[in-house]
């Protein structure tokens, strides 16, 4: 899959929702369970800057294409957060800067040590570490897009569905970048394949884990990925990641769900 970074940058826009009738939520509000999932998604989108930080402390940012992508990606994800916050606002749930800040403050020492850990690893491993980030990003973006697809299926709504489709469409472009980068770097280096396989199989978790409270992670994963249709999405994501060079046979999402006790091991 070819990816043209200049086209991506030129087409990058803040997602819009001005043409959608969000007042439809006043007469047809979303149920509590869905609002809780949307709040999680909103917070995770706002926390993109934390993922950006982890990449910037490694050699990843010195690559021109990666740097351009991260600039556009960070802004697009931020606006995903704002779009979801607009939906929550109609339901009387406000997500202000101070609340996002408060959530980031809660992460505590882990958050302080993460950049140190990432920077050390990045400097020890060198350029091959970029393959880990690109593969990790591919898995994260695929799981986010799968989450949006599942929510569209579970909660058809005249205002929510088009908004989530717009977000999922941008996530698809992010997947294309990460997957192209990951494939290229994994193909080029046996060391990158070994390190990436080790990192993803041992440490990858659903997007938002490590940042959001554990009970919220479990709620969202259960809400979106339980049942036969949900598990089909899990298998699909695992199959796509396992197609990357050196990652054959991995089932990172199924394993992450099993570790959380959400599906049998």
């Amino acid at each position, binding site marked *: 899959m070819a990816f043209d970074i200049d086209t991506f940058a030129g087409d990058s826009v*803040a997602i819009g929702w001005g043409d959608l009738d969000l007042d439809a939520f006043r007469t047809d509000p979303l149920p509590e369970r869905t609002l809780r999932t949307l709040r999680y998604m909103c917070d995770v989108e706002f926390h993109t800057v934390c993922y950006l930080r982890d990449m910037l402390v490694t050699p990843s*940012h010195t690559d*021109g294409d990666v740097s351009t992508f991260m600039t556009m990606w*960070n802004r697009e994800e931020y606006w995903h957060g704002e779009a979801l916050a607009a939906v929550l606002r109609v339901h009387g749930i406000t997500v202000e800067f101070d609340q996002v*800040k408060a959530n980031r403050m809660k992460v505590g020492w882990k958050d302080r040590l993460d950049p140190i850990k990432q*920077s050390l690893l990045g400097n020890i491993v060198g350029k091959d570490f970029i393959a880990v980030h690109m593969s990790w990003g591919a898995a994260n973006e695929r799981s986010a897009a799968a989450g949006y697809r599942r929510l569209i299926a579970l909660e058809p709504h005249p205002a929510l569905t088009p908004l989530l489709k717009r977000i999922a469409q941008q996530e698809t472009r992010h997947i294309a970048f990460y997957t192209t980068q990951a494939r290229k770097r994994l193909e080029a280096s046996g060391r990158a394949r070994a390190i990436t396989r080790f990192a993803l199989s041992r440490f990858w978790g659903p997007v938002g884990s490590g940042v959001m409270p554990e009970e919220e992670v479990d709620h969202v994963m259960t809400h979106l990925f339980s049942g036969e249709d949900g598990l089909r999405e899990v298998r699909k994501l695992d199959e796509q990641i396992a197609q990357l060079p050196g990652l054959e046979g991995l089932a990172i999402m199924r394993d992450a769900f099993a570790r959380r006790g959400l599906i049998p091991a």
Partner: protein
Amino acid sequence: MSAGAFDVLAYSADAQGSHRSELTGVGLPLPEPLRTELGYLRSRLSGTTAWLSLVLVTPTHKNARITAFLSGWAYERYWLADALDALTAEVGAPPAVRVGLRARFAPLVEAVLANLHGSALPAVHMAERAVDGVLLDAILGHSIGRASGPVAADLERLRRVLARQQAFFTEEAGRLLASSARARRLSRRRLTARAWPIGADDDPVRTAAVLTALSAADAAWARRADDRIAELPGLAGLGIARRSAANPGRPVLRTTLRPVVALGRLVASAVRRTG
């Protein structure tokens, strides 16, 4: 502390993307000194990820208002650099980023230091950008004076984008510095320990050429820039522009004892925090 008046949401929604379709000076010949100066500005404007790698490892990344602004800011800077590429007819990839040991380990060192300096760092980072904005504006003003009509009009357009960014950094720095004596002390120390504009230490030869040309054309530029910087709380009398013009590409204040002094300050800071 109350949030500032700058509307971050409106800014981010309205962040300026590609300027290419609006530029009128593309393809016009540029005198070589102007080309050099615009190439230098392009490098300073595009160095966002290197700076963000130092800022986001600190408590600044917890401040959602600042990170929201920075998402639009980095986007705008990308397209400002692209506009300068168009005007100077630069094609292909920009020069490779030099990644020496210092640059590789800088985020690691900053992440460790952040645990000692803590909440004072957002003020430092905002002040850094406010000071940088004053210096870049002086250079850009000089470029506009040298440029022909259409190119000058294009550069004025870019200057307006930078002015809006500067409004945020000035307001945010002013607010954060005014509320903390510790932030003011730390800012004074760190602002004088680095070369200006941001990125100048990796680009000393071009920095010297650009600042020397600026001083030759307008001997008072540094005083005016320092006067603007002095309006920020606690930053009077630093002489950043004047000293940078005298020693381009070098830290504002240099001392062979700096590492020893820095270590002493770190130890004292750690003792204060644990005590």
